[in-house]
């Protein structure tokens, strides 16, 4: 088991993806907590106060807030406002968001945006960069 690098909360409705990401992140030394619904993710993050949050955009199942809404809620939260968020998305095209959407404090207060599917190397590099930027 490698040395502990930090805590990450993964919020995604895709159980398989959560599992594979968890496996990867744990394999490189992160402690991972996961949730499958957006509200649950918010609560989990408040509880665990991780170093970083990986957040999906769209959630299947019963109606509820999406990734953007949660990220905005986190940004306003006393406890979570400084916690970096990396947005994971497979729905960019469907939403017509455009490639050039860059993290924006008001609309999308996240540190990075990763298009699914993503390969391990890319994911890890992005996480490293975000954490490094946080100091």
């Amino acid at each position, binding site marked *: 088991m490698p040395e502990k690098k930090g805590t990450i909360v993964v919020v995604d409705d895709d159980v398989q*993806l959560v599992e594979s990401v968890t496996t990867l992140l744990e394999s490189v030394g992160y402690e991972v907590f996961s949730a499958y619904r957006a509200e649950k993710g918010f609560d989990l993050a408040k509880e665990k106060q991780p170093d970083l949050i990986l957040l999906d955009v769209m959630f299947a199942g019963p109606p509820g807030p999406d990734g953007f809404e949660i990220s905005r809620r986190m940004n306003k939260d006393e406890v979570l406002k400084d916690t970096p968020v990396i947005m994971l998305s497979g729905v960019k095209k469907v939403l017509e968001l455009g*490639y050039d959407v860059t993290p924006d404090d008001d609309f999308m207060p996240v540190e990075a945006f990763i298009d699914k599917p993503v390969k391990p190397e890319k994911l890890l590099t992005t996480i490293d960069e975000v954490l490094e930027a946080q100091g």
Partner: protein
Amino acid sequence: MKLQTKFNLGIVVVFVVLAASIGALSIHYVNTNTIREAKDRVSIYTRAAWEIHDGKIAQIEAALEVLARTQTVKEALQPSGDGRELLQVREELERVRQEQEMDVLNLLAPDGTVLLRTRYPYATGDNLADDPIVQQVIAEQENSTGNIILSRDRLDVAGEGLMERVLAIGQVPQGMFAGAAVPVVQDGEMVGILQMGTLLNGAVEEVDRIRDAVFANETYNGKPVGTATIFMGDLRISTNVLDNQGRRAVGTRVSDEVAEQVLEDGEPWTGRAYVVDTWYLSQYDPIRDPNGDIIGMLYVGELEQRYLDLRRQAVVMFLSVVLGGMLVAFLTFYFLTRGVVRPIRKLSHATHLLSEGELAYRVDVERSDELGELASSFNKMAERLGEQRREIEQNQRRLKELNDELRTTNRNYMEMLGFVSHELKNPLSSAMMSLHTVKDGYLGEVTDAQEKSLDSVARSLDYFQEMIKNYLDLSRLEKGELEAHRQSVHLRSQVVEPVLEGLSKSLEERNMEVVDNLPDDLEVYADSDLLRVVYDNLLSNAIKYGDEGGIVELDGHLEDDRVTLSVYNEGQGIPPEQMPRLFKKFSRLDSPEHAKEKGTGLGLFICREIIEEHGGRIWADSEEGEWVRFSFTLPDQSRRSNNA
């Protein structure tokens, strides 16, 4: 030109030609005839005038013959007789002269010596044997008649007043007499000669008689229809031609032309003559004395105007008949042709309507001839066309319905394809994540055999990913959602670099190098999102099909309003025969080299759709076995400044 107009024009031309010919012929005929008739008539009039003149002289002769047989005259010629008998007979003869309205009546001795005159101052004793009439009586002892000229000295003794009458006309001191002389015979022996005559100079009775007898003293438009004149030489001495003041035009002379022909050559002259102030159809005959010498002329003329008017009337009547006939013929023809032209016009109108698509129109021509057949055929044809059109329209409707159905089906299919593709992304994402986590050794050492197997899975998943990406793009295209939101884009940083970043792993695996020749400051006016799709496809192809270890070159330049961009790679290239279907949907290259690389056959089709949405064009150049270059243009670059 309309058919009716053509017919009308044709018949008018025919009629005009006919009318002109007939008119010319008739005018010529009338002219020749009237002129010939006029000449004939003038000739007849002249003969009648001669009859009257000669009749007058014959009358004188007859009166003298009666006198010559009277006892009184014979006794007066007795050689034994004294002056008393002569005086008695003078009174008797003077009475006769006045009854006969003669100017002279003389009794001569057989040798021509004047025994007595019946006109004051009753001169006697001179000899008249050289008088042409008297001369003949002396020579032949028979009656003699004719016209003679009396010279001045003769006139002086002939009697009081004669010289004055002569001189009153043209100041010519000689007179022209018409008269006769007869012998007085006693016991078979000529004992004397009786001579009587009338002075023609200034006389009106004879010419007026000619006029009245021949022309009935008619006038035409205020002018006498006919006139007669007696000339002494070329001088008018007795005439009923009136001058401008309405006086008899005595004392004037005839034209040189007439004088020459009649007086010198002794030929009658016939023709138009301008008399005083108007034209006459005239004849001039020479008047000869008993010796045959020409001493004057007899003229008869008929007013030409009457002939001209008659001729004009004849021509007018003739032409009226001709034109009237033609009008009737023309009207008949007009209505006949109209009967033909009207149905033709109806047919023409109907054909016009038909050509404009009015198939319901029918021609209303009820005839039993060829035109009727034509009309009925036309109606049948229109009927058939109408049926065919209804059929076609029905088919078109059915096609449209089918088409709409197909489109809906396609749209549903595309929507489902999009949905499924999207749904596939999630399991794919986790599968790739897990696979690469293992393959990249995060979960422990991987053996070569394991890695080989994992690579195979990874390639399948890559293809799977590409397929999903393309199907999502295709779904958007087919749903018509593709719309270029153009803005100013820095080509390298906003398009090429993000794409290359995603492809860096593949490039590395294929050991290929990208040579970026793009100008540093190249900005294009385009939808960056879509442009990335294009570059992603072209570069993926270049990596996939290019030579391992080869280079990929990016070029671009702006020229005028258009930017041309290209992606080049070394490799097998594309055979010419496969070029045409390169950009078609679901087209894949058939070549053994490419067999292991699977493609969806959608990438270039999507590229083409995107470029065409931008108003540009995409094409490929290749040298088989050497290289291939995909190029595309983006026009309207100047709008960038206005819309940026």
